[in-house]
């Protein structure tokens, strides 16, 4: 068996997305979905409902009133956001462990995933996009490939690092050159295996290559930019450092000014403690 096939076979060792998580994603990818569809899915799972309400009531959202039901949560935060949070509250399982190959301690990959999803959501809201839940969820799980590739990166770290230092490759291109597959491509394969929507697979596959996005697609540039902002702020950055490429043309398509982006960084930093609380409520630490 070829090495890449062996790596892809390891997708099976990931904890699969729960049935309920799958259902929520189905609802959010359907433009005709309604509040009652979401309530119907969540209401039979008491643990999930309670956790979702705790998340919605966390300081990050700064709601003046305590929310007591999913219906109320949707009224205050919107169906898109509540669905995103339901997925977040249900997705941390694969992301919690330490990833030694990437030099990330326990909890750091999840902390990074949530941060990147929140920044993506913030940028998408500023652009008034209508697929915010898709963007949030894709940003949240975009590095699932790292969970599998981690052991291979650890074994080949010297060679990957040499390719970055001496050949000027990005870390992700070096992964592909040395191991045969990179974490974004592997993540896309996982997403396909789990029957995620083609739009989500596409974002995961190209989050480091937004030049592949079609001209009208703003989701990929947003997730790419949010990822770059996280790296700049040192969120979830490990042995790969900032050795990725910044695609100015793709980012320019979003029409953000330098000040907009700096304000995003300030807003995130100001909410730092609330974000930490949100990360822990969503299954991190």
């Amino acid at each position, binding site marked *: 068996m070829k090495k890449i096939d062996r790596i892809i076979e390891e997708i099976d060792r990931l904890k699969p997305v729960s049935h309920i998580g799958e259902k929520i994603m189905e609802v959010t990818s359907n433009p005709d979905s309604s509040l009652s569809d979401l309530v119907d899915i969540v209401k039979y799972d008491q643990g999930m409902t309670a956790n979702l309400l705790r998340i919605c009531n966390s300081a990050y959202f700064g709601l003046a009133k305590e929310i007591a039901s999913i219906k109320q949560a949707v009224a205050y935060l919107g169906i898109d956001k509540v669905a995103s949070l339901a997925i977040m509250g249900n997705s941390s399982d694969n992301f919690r462990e330490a990833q030694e190959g990437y030099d990330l301690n326990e909890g750091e990959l999840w902390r990074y995933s949530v941060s990147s999803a929140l920044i993506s959501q913030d940028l998408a809201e500023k652009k008034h996009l209508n697929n915010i839940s898709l963007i949030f969820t894709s940003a949240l799980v975009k590095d699932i490939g790292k969970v599998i590739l981690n052991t291979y990166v650890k074994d080949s770290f010297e060679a990957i690092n040499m390719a970055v230092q001496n050949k000027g490759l990005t870390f992700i291109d070096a992964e592909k050159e040395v191991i045969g597959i990179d974490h974004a491509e592997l993540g896309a394969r996982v997403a396909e295996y789990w029957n995620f929507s083609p739009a989500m697979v596409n974002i995961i596959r190209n989050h480091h290559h937004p030049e592949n996005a079609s001209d009208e697609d703003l989701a990929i540039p947003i997730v790419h930019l949010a990822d770059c902002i996280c790296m700049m702020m*040192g969120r979830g950055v*490990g042995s790969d450092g*900032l050795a990725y490429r910044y695609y*100015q043309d793709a980012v320019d398509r979003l029409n953000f000014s330098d000040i907009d982006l700096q304000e995003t*960084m300030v807003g995130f930093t100001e909410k*730092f403690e609330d974000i930490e609380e949100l990360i822990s409520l969503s299954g991190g630490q």
Partner: protein
Amino acid sequence: MNLIVGVGDMKVSNDPESVLLTYSLGSCIGLAIYDPVVKVGGLLHYMLPESNIDVQKAKKNPFMFGDTGIPSLFKDTYKFGAKKNRLKIIVVGGSQILDQKGLFNIGKRNHTVLRKMFWKNNAMIDFEDVGGSVNRTLKLEIKTGQAWLKVSGTEMKKI
């Protein structure tokens, strides 16, 4: 005791038991200063170069910005008796993502604002490791003034 300095944060101490530590400097700058005579040290981790993007927020948290954080760091160590001409100064961070150009190249701008302020105020840097596409961690021991630097992909080293 480790005193962790977060993003947009600063700590100053003369407690010989304390160690100032900041993780994960990407495009941010970690600035450590230490006076070996009065044994006081400070560590600043600022994120953006200039506070004029939001003066109100800079008043609330001056440590987010270079132009407000750097003077605060020096002033706070002076309160403990530090003198500028004795300070050992360490500057690390300011990394860039590859091909990052123009205004949003925050790493480079963070470094530039520091160089300008130091030039104006005659402050000399003793150790500097800035730029590239790496991630850095900086540590300063108050008892001895010994500092350590970890660059992504390598082990922690004394500097």
